[in-house]
């Protein structure tokens, strides 16, 4: 038994070609989550398309990605082979956890994908439009229970922004945080809550099947193939996008940053990535360079504002 095991391992060791990793991508979350999915999708496509023959993914879970971010900044400074996946949720987590390390400490490379948020009600609800829902919210904020993801996450932020835009005190919203998308969805389907917030993708199949009613989406423009107005159209100036990005280590030279950006450009242009995004139902919102940096700054400022309004950041 032991001998066969040893044999297998040595064969394995020999079979693995010995070369350095081109990239090591950190997913600052547990296996199975969105960031982990993004990192592994990148790994697969980067390798399959020959952009980078050897890519490794490591998971450093904890505290909305801030544990991974801190470790990344500490361990990878100046190393052009190290990447980290992150997203909008991290912006909020850095603020609510008062993380000493922020996104200013890494080198943002590109925004890769984005999820639009959606507001839904159970099919059995008498609420037909976002206007109806906001009326109810204005009349008695406590009577509208919102199911969504973790406290201070994108879903919570959206509800806070909407309340503010509608002239309702954001600290008065009755937001019920659920752990994981599954449970929140079950609460909406089971008519346990008034409304639900999550990404459009999570709700899409339910809406198609007629078990939920989609009131509005959080994008700036209407989404193709989705029959629902934007929140903006409904009269409330709220646009939220739950984006995912890739960033590189701090302290890189301009050439190193340019090389990584070029690789990400190649990734984005590849057929494999297009297919991957279609399979997973992710929208391609690729944005690199200065344009991304500007958008990142704007998002951080807006998020800081709304988290203070909700009372999660003091």
């Amino acid at each position, binding site marked *: *038994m032991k001998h066969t095991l040893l044999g297998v391992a040595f064969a394995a060791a020999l079979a693995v070609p010995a070369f350095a990793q081109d990239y090591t991508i950190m997913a600052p979350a*547990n*296996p*199975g*989550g969105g960031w982990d*999915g993004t990192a*592994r999708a990148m790994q697969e496509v980067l390798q399959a398309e020959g952009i980078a023959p050897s890519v490794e993914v490591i*998971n*450093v*879970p*904890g*505290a*909305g990605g*801030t*544990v991974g971010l*801190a*470790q990344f900044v500490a361990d990878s400074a100046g190393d052009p082979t190290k990447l980290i996946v992150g997203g909008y949720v991290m912006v909020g987590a850095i603020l*609510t*956890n008062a*993380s000493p390390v922020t996104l200013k400490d890494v080198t943002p490379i590109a925004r890769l994908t984005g999820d639009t948020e959606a507001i839904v009600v159970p099919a059995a609800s008498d609420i037909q439009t976002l206007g109806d829902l906001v009326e109810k919210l204005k009349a008695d904020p*406590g*009577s509208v*229970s919102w199911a969504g993801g*973790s*406290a*201070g996450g994108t879903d919570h932020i959206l509800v806070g922004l909407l309340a503010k835009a509608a002239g309702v005190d954001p600290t008065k919203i*009755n937001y*019920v*945080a*659920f*752990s*994981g*998308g*599954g*449970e929140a*969805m*079950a*609460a909406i*389907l*089971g008519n*346990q*809550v008034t409304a639900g917030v999550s990404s459009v993708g999570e709700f*899409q*199949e*339910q809406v*198609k*099947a007629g*078990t939920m009613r989609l009131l509005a989406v959080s994008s700036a423009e209407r989404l193709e193939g989705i029959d629902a107005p934007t929140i903006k159209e409904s009269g409330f100036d709220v646009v939220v996008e739950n984006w995912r990005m890739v960033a590189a280590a701090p302290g890189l030279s301009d050439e190193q940053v340019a090389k990584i950006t070029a690789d990400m450009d190649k990734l984005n242009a590849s057929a494999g990535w297009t297919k991957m995004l279609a*399979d*997973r*139902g992710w929208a391609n919102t690729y944005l690199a360079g200065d344009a991304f940096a500007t958008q990142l700054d704007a998002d951080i400022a807006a998020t800081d504002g709304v988290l203070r309004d909700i009372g*999660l950041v003091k």
Partner: protein
Amino acid sequence: MESFSLLMQGLSTALEPMILFYALIGVTLGTAVGVLPGIGPALTVALLLPVTYGLDPAGSLIMFAGIYYGGMYGGSTTSILLNTPGESASIVTAIEGNQMARQGRGGPALATAAIGSFVAGLIATLLLAFLAPQVVKLALTLGPREYFALMVLAFVTVSATFGDSALRGLTSLFLGLALACVGIDGLTGAARLTYGVPQLMDGIETTTLAVALFAIGEALAVAAMLDPPDGMHRVKGSVKMTREDWRRSWKAWLRGTFIGFPIGSMPAGGADVASFLSYAAERKLTKHPEEFGHGAIEGVAGPEAANNAAAAGTLVPLLTLGLPTTATAAIMLAGFQQFGLQPGPLLFVMNAELVWGLIASLLIANVMLVVLNLPLIGLWIKLLSIPRPWLYGGILLFATLGTIGVNPSPVELGMLILFGVMGYGMRLYGYPVAPVVVGLILGPMAEQQLRRALSIAQGDWMTLVSTPVSAVLLGVSAVFLVVPMIMRLRGRGQVLSQVAGDAD
């Protein structure tokens, strides 16, 4: 009967030799990795999933099914033989199973776990095939208040894992509850008991606590014994189950299945809760109460059936609604998407062939699992004849591997050591370790569901008994809690000794 013919079609595809071969590989890999202490099913599935990439859909699905059931099954082996459960759902298996192994009855314990898993897997997979839409409709009517009531019931019945002293059992449970407070509060985002350590913000990982208390605590306790009882663990008698074992096991398997499947189907259920309830049920219903805590076979048969049935139950919300309710299910979801399959309410309609192919694969994998594992029992038992220094060295290496692989931070390893020492200390003074893990799992569930229910009802406590299901569950809990007390107060003599066995 359309579904039936689709299932038959799926089964006939699955019976091709090549497909059967893939099933065998899947089951073998799943069992082999799942059996390692410290590596639970979620990690097993996450690690092995990439192995299925690149095969054709039929082959990939069946390997996948094999890995899933194999990983679920593998956890019980080390629980029973070495008292080192790799995941929360086989903790209660360790209580009776390890006692059986110590008495040289490791063979029958493994056999009842294997056959129980098979029976439960078979029935639960068939229920999944034919009742999934109905089951999920029922599950969806349950909201936070019903889950809170279920958690209360679980708390009340959890005393079954307490061992012989109620005081020490409760102390263990409260230690678990206290540990459960550590981390970000799920509802408000407030950091509790984290002292500014970011690694503590996500709370204490169940696997870390379970592995530390059981594997490391056990290793320390065994090593520190001055004169280890001679021949502990030595196999006596047959590795096969006796007629008596069969007679006592089959009802437990069925009960475990019917407890496990519905609880696994609930979006906030889970295999661990199912295994706790099944153990409590077996303890209440047994004709041999004196054997519990000392190697009662029902205490292995029930929970093992329950956690496998729950594993199949988890697929109900996953396949019918696209809701991943466990980490393992979330990883499976990513696996499905490689076939362009979007789990959701329309999945059964849109991707009927693939779904029935998966269900057929699960049935095949289940059979394969029992075929593979029954003969392996003899081999597993031999694990115990490895000299102790090598055996425990290996256990600790694997136990830390699980933690290192998932989260290699010094804080996590530090906690592993700290809780390991705690587990050793608890063993010295007769404090049971299982309730600590039970408290860590149930505590946050109960708290969050309570606060969600109250938040939705805007602070109205009557909401907790406002639906028949929640009222009945809470009522049953109250009966379980109060009746033994009254009996004790009234009886004090004969009645006390009579009920002491089954209602402590």
